[in-house]
């Protein structure tokens, strides 16, 4: 009974059934009708059982080392892929220049077994520049970041494009989302604690109108903010660099129809308090990625491919490739 079960689990028919399950499940998963994690975990575990049983039952594997390496590595690939799906984290966060990452992503997706160490991660976004070619073709991004290593020594680096910030396995990558952010200080009239807020204006400042609507927190005051640039930000005909503008004003419109044009340090008085425009900063969007199984996945994938190549080399060496092209005596009619 046990032997029969093991033989069934070790069979190629079972392998085919799992392949078909994957082939059928992936389109559903791509459409969002089935969780990727569930599909890959189930298929991965089934494959591990299938290959594990095959390694145990079939002597062929022991007599063909290439096949043995391939299937053993495949078990490791699948094991690490399942581990990856259970422990991964991916998220996104936007940081204003000078802001320290709080340890929380603004949007995220995680495996069910992800041990959340992100909340302990800290770094500061310290400004960026982006090169553009003629026709608004984006070139190199240089983003300065600062962090403390082991809570002691201050480190700084320039990241962007192919370079990420790696903090305990969490990789922070710059994205194409970036822009300008006016920073405000709100001083309530009732004497309570002042609060600071930065407002991220739309990304792609050279293309999109720099307008945002905002309600001052803890109040009913709604305002419309427009960034007015007094210098040319981009010349689509030439190469240029995106950086913080030096000459700008901020138009602030309130619901009652009043309009204020602000410079750094300007204030606007409301009955509930005073709004101070402290200045313009930049903001950068980051993607966060964490996968502890990544290196194992790479190593086992390469080992599996090596095993497969070795197996086919040995298998195909029995009869040389050219043996199959000599014309047979029996012609096909």
């Amino acid at each position: 009974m046990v032997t029969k079960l093991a033989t069934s689990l070790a069979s190629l028919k079972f392998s085919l059934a799992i392949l078909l399950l994957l082939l059928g499940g992936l389109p559903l998963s791509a459409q969002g009708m089935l969780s990727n994690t569930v599909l890959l975990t189930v298929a991965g575990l089934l494959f591990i059982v299938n290959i594990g049983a095959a390694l145990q039952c079939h002597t062929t594997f022991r007599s063909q080392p290439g096949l043995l390496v391939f299937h053993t590595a495949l078990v490791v690939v699948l094991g690490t892929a399942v581990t990856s799906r259970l422990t991964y984290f991916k998220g996104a966060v936007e940081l204003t220049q000078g802001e320290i990452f709080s340890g929380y992503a603004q949007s995220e997706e995680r495996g069910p077994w992800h041990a959340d160490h992100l909340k302990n991660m800290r770094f500061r976004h310290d400004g960026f520049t982006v090169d553009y070619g003629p026709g608004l073709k984006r070139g190199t991004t240089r983003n300065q970041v600062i962090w403390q290593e082991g809570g002691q020594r201050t480190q700084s680096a320039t990241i962007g494009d192919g370079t990420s910030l790696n903090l305990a396995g969490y990789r922070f990558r710059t994205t194409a989302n970036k822009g300008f952010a006016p920073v405000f200080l709100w001083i309530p009239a009732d004497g309570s604690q002042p609060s600071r807020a930065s407002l991220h204006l739309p990304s792609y400042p050279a293309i999109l109108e720099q307008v945002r609507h905002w309600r001052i927190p803890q109040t009913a005051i709604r305002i419309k903010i427009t960034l007015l640039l007094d210098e040319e930000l981009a010349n689509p005909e030439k190469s240029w660099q995106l950086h913080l503008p030096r000459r700008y004003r901020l138009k602030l419109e309130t619901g009652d129809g009043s309009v204020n044009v602000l410079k750094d340090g300007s204030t606007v008085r409301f009955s509930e308090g005073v709004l101070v425009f402290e200045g313009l900063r930049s903001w950068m969007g980051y993607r966060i990625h964490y996968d502890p199984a990544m290196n194992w996945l790479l190593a086992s994938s390469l080992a599996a491919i090596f095993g497969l190549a070795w197996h086919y080399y040995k298998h195909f060496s029995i009869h040389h490739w050219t043996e199959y092209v000599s014309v047979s005596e029996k012609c096909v009619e």
Partner: protein
Amino acid sequence: MIMAEEGLLWLAILGYLLAGMVSVIVVIFNRGWERILLLLLSLGLILHGFSLGLRWQRLGHGPFISMFEILSSNLWSLTLAVTLFFWFYPALRATSVVLLPTLLVLMGWMMVSNSADTAIPPTYDTIWLYVHIGFGKIALGAILVAVGIGGIILMRSLGSLARHVQRLPDNPRLDELSYRFAALGFIFHSLMLVAGAIWSLDAWGRYWSWDPLETWTLHTWLLLALYLHLRPLFRPPPVVGALLIWAIFTFAFLVFFGVPFISRAPHQGVV
């Protein structure tokens, strides 16, 4: 320089077209013009290669940004695979009647694509992109050769065409050879996926993101794995094996060249 690029490309196209015509003459009219076929293909490859090289030098990046560049570079690499196959397997040059029309489809598509200059995004500036693309081209080339061999088996199953290819090796041998090229394609397809994952990690901080091209390329890999498992398990007759490899190639072709239709870049949203 643009004039030279275009001139060389048109001459190459002429060479490929003539090779296509000669392949029909070789098979249908049973003329021994195989050497002329090989010469025309080699000539087309050299001219096309120079055209691609001039464009590469002028733009400062390889031909893999726009659809025109992708089609042009694949036309070149697949023609190279076919030419090498003809070189090493003179007895199977009759497969040209199947292989060259496939290449002519790519060529026609390339000719109606927008050949405007392109700029390389910063995320493409890594050696792993070249490794990834290189493995992909070898994989597709090997599968195309398997398709050409499978095509002969299918021609034999169609009564009226069988007599044109009867002098070739018998079906079981062709089936085995087709299987070998498919296995070779599978190995390089796997390497392409791994190199692509390294590139993706380098460029965007994650090795897999389930974008349309990645997802459908994984389907192609799974289909190839299915085919390679089916053979030892069910020992399908050569015609079924040929049909399977044709189905996989058609799927791979649609994935590789069709997905860019539904996404703005080869890997959607990541540039």
